[in-house]
């Protein structure tokens, strides 16, 4: 695992500064919407990457976003609770459900883990789409979810306020995950990802580490889900299905799973790219697919690894041009 070259504190500060600076540059509702979506996706991809760092490609990550979303939506609209309470309750519900689901899923590993989490995610999606229609809205979806209420006198009605809320949530999550990655936890996770068995022999409780990251990641996903529900104000099972999950994987892998900053680079660049591609109307999907293929072929370790790879290439070129003929030393 590549240790990031950027000091973690600096990286988080950069994100926080960038997020704070945006409203100074534009108040356009569309740009704010895209930026809010990026920040929300960032919390999802960072937490997804946490799980990937222990070798888990968890295709049910988005399902926990959905669990948080529906839980909060129902608690607010049916039980009259405040968003500020359901923000945590929703995430907690997701985390609690993650314990049994994760325990079951972690009985297998590798591609089987990938497939079993995919199967779980489809079961959850079909459940939200077809059962308890009175609660979840069925195929028509759930509508009329209110925006967050007042907090400390601040109103959260407009795009700017909601953007600010998501920015704060995102920076907190990023800070927590980056610190985790740089701690012993992160090192252990990396070791587990490289070789389960070796880590076991060194006394690591692999199962406990993996389950912890599963539950932790699901908590964050639930958090994002609650925000999503009260930001979009409508929920539909397709919001938590294969298509959005696949995008999360794309953002993370294209950014680079080896570094904690990979998802940041991937999410920001790919979201901007896909928004620009909207201009292509019905060529959008075609070009996006081509972009994926080309990016993966040219940057197999992810975009975040490009500067390092470029540096190494440069070094090799320089060594070859400066080495005296016949020196026989490999660069």
């Amino acid at each position: 695992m590549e240790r990031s070259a950027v000091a973690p504190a600096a990286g988080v500060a950069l994100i926080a500064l960038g997020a704070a600076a945006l409203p100074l540059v534009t108040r356009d509702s569309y740009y704010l919407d895209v930026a809010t979506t990026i920040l929300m996706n960032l919390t999802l991809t960072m937490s997804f990457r946490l799980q990937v760092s222990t070798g888990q490609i968890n295709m049910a990550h988005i399902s926990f976003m959905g669990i948080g979303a529906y839980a909060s939506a129902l608690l607010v609209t049916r039980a009259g609770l405040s968003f500020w309470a359901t923000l945590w309750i929703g995430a907690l519900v997701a985390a609690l459900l993650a314990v049994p689901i994760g325990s079951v899923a972690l009985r297998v590993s590798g591609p089987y883990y990938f497939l079993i989490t995919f199967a779980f995610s489809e079961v959850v999606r079909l459940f939200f789409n077809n059962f308890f229609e009175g609660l979840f809205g069925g195929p028509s979806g759930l509508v009329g979810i209110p925006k967050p209420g007042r907090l400390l006198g601040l109103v959260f009605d407009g795009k700017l306020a909601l953007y600010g809320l998501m920015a704060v949530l995102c920076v907190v999550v990023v800070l927590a995950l980056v610190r985790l990655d740089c701690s012993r936890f992160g090192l252990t996770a990396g070791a587990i990802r490289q070789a389960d068995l070796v880590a076991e022999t060194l006394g690591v409780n692999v199962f406990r580490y993996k389950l912890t990251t599963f539950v932790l990641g699901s908590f964050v996903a639930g958090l994002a889900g609650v925000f999503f529900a009260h930001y979009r104000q409508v929920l539909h099972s397709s919001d938590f299905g294969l298509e959005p999950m696949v995008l999360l994987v794309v953002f993370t892998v294209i950014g680079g799973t080896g570094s904690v900053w990979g998802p940041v680079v991937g999410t920001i660049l790919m979201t901007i790219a896909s928004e620009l591609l909207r201009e292509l109307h019905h060529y959008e999907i075609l070009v996006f697919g081509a972009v994926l293929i080309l990016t993966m072929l040219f940057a197999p370790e992810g975009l975040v690894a490009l500067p390092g790879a470029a540096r190494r290439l440069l070094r090799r070129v320089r060594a070859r041009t400066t080495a005296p003929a016949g020196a026989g030393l490999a660069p």
Partner: protein
Amino acid sequence: MSIELLVQALLNGFGLAMVYVLVALGLTLIFSILEIINFAHGEFYMLGGYVTYYLYALFGVNYFATLVLAILTVGIAGVVAERLIFHDLRGRALNAFIVSLGLLWVMQAGAQLAFGVLDKPVPSAFSGVVRGLGVVISVERLVVSLSAIVLIVALYLFLRVSRPGRAMRAVAQDPDAAALQGVNIDVVSALGFGVGCALAGGAGGLLAPLFAVSPAMGALPVVKAFIIIIIGGMGSLPGAVLGGLLLGGVEGLGALFMGSAAVNILGFVMVIVVLLVRPRGLVGGA
């Protein structure tokens, strides 16, 4: 609930199971040789369908000749895809996932732009139904199932008996040992990918007259294929056949007693149960 109804339900499920097994076999062949999961597999199925539409529905070429041409065309497309995109991704499952996703979008969007967005019907090559013992099946489905079985047997013989087939099995079992034995891994990879896609294309051609063709037609068969190979075991031909029959039976009978969403959930629950109880699949272990 009469016995005839139950038998009809089972027959419904089994009727086309072998065609989905073909798709599954293609997927599992690619997985065992290149160690990657090709998410664009359904698009090669779709390609086979459109080749059939053009040759058979528009130009009137003989149905079985069309089928052979569809299999060959899609096989070649597979080899091209492997050489251009996949061959460097051996064993790199996550990257291959992203790349195959990109390929899926390119192929589906490309098909929509090239062929139009409406469903295009393909005339039935065989008409009529067969009735007996209170159950019914169309002649078309019967022929399609039998053709699928013929292709599965052909694949089995190919892998068992022919040199390229044995080379593929060697690479699937142990690529390093195979390389030491003089097997050209690159050639086997390309061939394996091509054969895998050809199987999907053949399935698409077989089902085109039954189901019409459309750009998004590959989505559902590929999900079924995944369920089948998990139940049967990745890398196992008899496992895929067993998985196909099991899934078909469950779906056929399930439809009698529950709604479609519940039947779908049942399929995924089967996957979860198998992965927990016997992750290598019912027959898997190869």
